[in-house]
């Protein structure tokens, strides 16, 4: 590793996003194995996203050509569009819940952009990676990279500001009934919008940022009402931390493409 070249930084960022991706995929596995609520779709897509980002940063890691990543995240973007439409269509959801999937959609779009917009010589044997971080790669439409990077940065700042207010696992464990009630209100699905838990605005807000988990918690509560401890979600704070890391890394990659 030549520390005089920015490639070392690309390698470092690739390691960071791979660790983050591993954690996200681990959340999916734990959630499925132990029925701990989490945003399954978001975690899964972020796991794949981390692998894709690492592959773009370090071409030798790329198992598939860039265009394949574009297709993968095209599907992810379509999925998030569907989730956004579904949330907007349901009654009783808060404004926070309505925008929950929007940044993930933008991140998927950024992955599509990075997959298709970059030109430049791929290194031999790279499997089609685009060799960011020192290859001199440039985007066909740099303004798009700037706009997406700014959106990523705005998301990072917004989420970081929100971070201390996101429910900790300890808080969920301390007040499982409150949490479950809040989850029911926020999910806005089975329980409907008016379950009386509007009197618990704090919890309501806490789960608002994670409506997927709220829906799962409501479901778990209905299935096993006496076993509420098992419905404690995987750490929403760590999930938000993962999103922050991924968004910063993505903004970095987009800026490299300017």
């Amino acid at each position, binding site marked *: 590793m030549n520390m005089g070249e920015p490639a070392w930084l690309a390698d470092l960022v690739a390691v960071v996003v791979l660790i983050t991706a591993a954690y996200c995929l681990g959340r999916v596995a734990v959630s499925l194995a132990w029925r701990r609520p989490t945003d399954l779709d978001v975690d899964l897509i972020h796991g794949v996203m981390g692998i894709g980002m690492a592959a773009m940063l370090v071409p030798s890691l790329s198992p598939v050509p860039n265009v394949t990543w574009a297709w993968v995240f095209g599907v992810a973007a379509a999925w998030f569009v569907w989730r956004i439409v579904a949330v907007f269509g349901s009654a009783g959801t808060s404004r926070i819940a309505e925008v929950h999937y929007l940044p993930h959609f933008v991140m998927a779009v950024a992955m599509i952009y990075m997959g298709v917009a970059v030109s430049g010589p791929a290194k031999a044997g790279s499997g089609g990676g685009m060799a960011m971080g020192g290859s001199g790669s440039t985007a066909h439409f740099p303004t798009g990279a700037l706009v997406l990077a700014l959106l990523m*940065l705005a998301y990072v700042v917004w989420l970081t*500001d*929100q971070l201390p207010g996101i429910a900790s696992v300890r808080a969920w464990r301390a*007040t499982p009934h409150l949490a479950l009630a809040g989850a029911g209100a926020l999910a806005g699905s089975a329980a409907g919008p008016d379950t009386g838990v509007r009197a618990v605005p*704090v919890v309501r*807000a806490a789960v*608002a940022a994670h409506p997927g988990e709220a829906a799962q918690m409501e479901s778990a509560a209905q299935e096993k009402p006496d076993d509420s401890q098992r419905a404690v979600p995987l750490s929403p704070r760590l999930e938000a931390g993962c999103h922050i890391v991924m968004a910063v890394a993505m903004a970095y990659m987009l*800026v*490299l493409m300017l």
Partner: protein
Amino acid sequence: MSDTAATGSTLTGRLGVHGRPGATLSGVTWHAPDTRRALQLCLAAIWLLDAVLQYQTFMFTKAFGQMLAATAAGNPGVISRPITWSAGIIEHHPVPINTAFATIQLLLAIGIALRPTVKVALGASVVWALAVWWLGEGLGEVLNSAASPVNGAPGAVIIYALLAVLLWPAGRGRAAAPFEAARAVGTRVAQGLWVVLWASLAYFSLMASNRAPQALHDMISGMASGNPGWLASIINAAARLVSHQGLAASIVLAVLLAFIAVSVLMPARLARSGVIVAIVLAAAIWVVGEALGGIFSGSGTDPNSGPLLALLALAYWPKRAARAVAATPTTTEIAGPQAQPEGL
């Protein structure tokens, strides 16, 4: 939203009914940003953009140190010698030093965005900004007759420091201030800082180096290269507009800047006009004179002064009289006044 908009004061009681008496649910409240916090978050976002730009390839080369050394030219010896000295060190160790620079800026951004650390981060950002203003920007060229409001005078980074001071978390006792920037330092001081900044820009625009017939044209047209077609077209069109019109353009610019400077002392309606003119002018300068801070060049270390001037102007937006008097910390459906961190 409306059903819970004012639940803050009853929050504890309700928790006592449904949950455990006195349950704190620490860490589960979330506060929507009020005006001041929103401005702080904008500042954090700009710091974050700064950090990401600082991680670009160019900054890890010797050319970065050479670029910093060039800012020493024209400054008095007492100012220029430390610049040359520090630039030399950076030139010889660009990788570790730039890594540290970028990481510091990243931490400042995250620190401002994170509510518990906002004061520490704002304070540190003032120190960092002052150091960079001297050692990285040569005091914004204000001492070497090359400063122009169009090319970023008085130095973008000093505006970071100014914003950190003006957006410092203030007690609720000053919620009745006529604009957000006055809450931390008081109305008179805030007005004074505004007048000094914009009046100095008006002065810079009238300096001999900026009045020359082709001065503004050359300054603007020099920014076009390396940018996307749409941006280069705008820049070139603006350059043609002021070609051989250096004196007239400088006078117009100075008049606008002078109006902005004094508008803060005028009644609210005129003050709002001044803020709007300031934002429009900052946007024009950012696009035409600064080419979005040279972000597309690969060697832009920050977005330059345009966004910061606009953010500063927003901090001076006059509140409506009734609102200013009755102002209380903004809370949302989910957070009550008792839970609002003091003065964020």
